[in-house]
């Protein structure tokens, strides 16, 4: 996968000048690809934590058989001098559940693709993502959920904060395929922009070939709520402290999903440190 220039693409192209059609392979990405396979048997419930510190490319294939449940946590805290790429493909069977929590906070240049195939009827995908960019970091994300079974339920919640001269593109697709009757899908992205030099691109895509669905997406991009900041500052916090608190609060719903207290504390401390520099 490293030999090609394009790492990932959105399912439907748009104007080229917007530069969002493709995720490019990060410069300097090592050619080695690490692969992981996760198999969840029918009726089984499994938790997997991918605590990612190594640069390079990672490929994960997960198969969740009927009635199974996978709790997958992917925390990317790769050194900020390196590039990191990940490609995660998930198959969700009948009545199966995929809970995903991702933290994209490390690396100089991040490219990530997530593809969830909700093939089974009544399958559930609950995807929560957090990204954090500062300095000259580049974050390039492409999440796609394909809803194929009947009565599938997809939820994609993404929270981000951008500082310094960070450049980020988030693409999130909900694809209601023909036959996905009775399915619902929801996608939200909330971005906090904390610096004048940030470039933020958001591409919430919704494709539908089925009328009996209920799809909804929303994006909000902006600086922090001044009311919140004022409230905190009236309680004695200075601007930086107040900002830090608001960003943390925004990340909390994602971080709360990480059951491993040690990892959670580490991510917390990592973000704190980076926020203090910003």
């Amino acid at each position: 996968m490293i030999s090609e220039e394009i790492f990932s693409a959105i399912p439907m192209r748009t104007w080229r000048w917007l530069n969002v059609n493709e995720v490019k392979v990060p410069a300097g990405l090592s050619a080695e690809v690490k692969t992981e396979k996760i198999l969840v048997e029918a009726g089984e419930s499994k938790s997997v934590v991918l605590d990612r510190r190594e640069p390079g490319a990672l490929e994960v294939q997960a198969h969740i058989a009927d009635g199974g449940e996978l709790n997958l946590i992917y925390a990317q805290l790769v050194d900020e001098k390196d590039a990191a790429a990940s490609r995660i493909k998930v198959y969700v069977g009948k009545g199966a559940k995929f809970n995903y929590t991702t933290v994209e906070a490390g690396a100089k240049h991040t490219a990530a693709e997530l593809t969830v195939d909700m093939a089974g009827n009544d399958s559930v995908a609950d995807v929560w993502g957090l990204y954090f960019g500062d300095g000259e970091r580049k974050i390039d994300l492409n999440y796609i959920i394909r809803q194929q079974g009947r009565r599938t339920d997809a939820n994609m919640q993404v929270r981000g904060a951008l500082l310094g001269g960070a450049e980020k593109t988030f693409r999130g697709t909900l694809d209601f395929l023909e036959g996905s009757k009775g399915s619902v899908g929801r996608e939200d992205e909330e971005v906090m922009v904390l610096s004048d030099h940030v470039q933020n691109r958001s591409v919430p895509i919704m494709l539908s070939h089925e009328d009996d669905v209920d799809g909804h997406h929303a994006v909000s991009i902006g600086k922090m709520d001044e009311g919140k900041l004022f409230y905190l500052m009236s309680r004695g916090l200075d601007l930086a402290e107040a900002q830090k608190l608001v960003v943390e609060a925004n990340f909390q719903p994602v971080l709360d999903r990480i059951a491993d207290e040690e990892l959670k504390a580490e991510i917390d401390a990592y973000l704190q440190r980076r926020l203090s520099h910003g």
Partner: protein
Amino acid sequence: MAEKKKTYVEDIERTLYDIKNADHSVYKSHSGLTPEIVRDISQRKHDPEWMTQFRLKSLEVYDSLALPTWGPSLEELNMDDIVTYVQPDAKMTGKWEEVPEDIKDTFDRLGIPEAEKTSLGGVGAQYDSEVVYHSIQEDMVKQGVIYTDMETALREHGDIVQEYFMKLVPPKDHKFAALHGAVWSGGSFVYVPEGVHVEMPLQSYFRLNAAGAGQFEHTLIIVEKNASLHFIEGCSAPKYNVTNLHAGCVELFVKEGARLRYSTIENWSRNMMNLNTKRALVEKDGLIEWVSGSFGSHISCLYPCSVLHGENARCEFTGVTFASKGQNLDTGASVIHAAPHTSANINTRTISKAGGKATYRSAVKVTKNAPYAKCSVNCESLMLDNLSRSDTLPVMDIEGDEADIGHEAKIGRISDEAIFYLTSRGIDEEEARAMIVRGFVEPIAKELPLEYALEMNNLVNIELEGTMG
């Protein structure tokens, strides 16, 4: 009974648009596109030299550009089959009686002269490649308002035209802009001097009668400082079995403190490829309001673009798209915030049914030079069956930290509960559905000129007939 009446409306409407007049054109270019054809068109149109050169240069650009890699497939369009210039057997006139009978009949049926009498400040009518009629109220002329066809403008106000023509949409923008630059013909020119408010709307109507032809009208509107204008554009064509092409270009210049409302109802027949480019440049405190209804065409690519160039410039975009059988309507809007405190509202509704494909595509760009930019987008899609497709593909590209951007989109079908509620009030299911669909597009309909709102309601009724089991 209400149902009966609907059927009646359907008959009238379809016949109305589909009447084909015999092709009495006095000249047609050869089909296809060569420098010779372009030169020939230019000569027949008595272009000034700079325009001839502009056309030839555009043709070069056209040849150098590839088809777009996104959007509906345009492969079935074969330029070698398209006749780019069809000159009707009529001279431009300001007197309705002088318009030839068959052309006059067409516009009479479409209600154009009637509307002129009652609610318009001026009217233009284009038939195939040339404008056949243009008129404007006397008092408008006295205030210095110019409303004429592009050819006359080129002759009488050549300096203004040369200053603005294809400056906002340069031929190298995309392949069909280049094509337009090479073979454009007809269209309207409006100039509203500083501080003048044009109270009644001006309306141009475009009719493409010839089979296998292209229409490439150019609309150039300049609204000077603190002036205002409402411009209405209507389009239709009879149905043929060959592909017709519409690649018009609209350039709108909204100066400081000026307001322009640009309303369009596009109801081309379903053999039309509608690849239209519209763009507005809005200066300080200016306002552009787009009201856009897309109902016709086989394929449409239409994304009016607003460049908010001056501080506090604003854009309001209201659009509705209805894609039915055999239609692939790719519509939307783009906004470029290039100055501080600029703001935009985009509000769209799309409906797809009977295998139709509707795509909402948009771009919101906030440049570094636009702190405190504000943009809110709301698009809703309604699918009336599962044969159809409905896609939403918005892009937001935001630089800086002082922007406030919100986007919301919904997709779904008519809810059973809403139907139950209305039927519990005695309304039958078919009417309940129609009411809900009309309600869905109502926020758009209320922005349209009355006769267009009625036309849209009729179209919705026609389209909904027979959708109940």
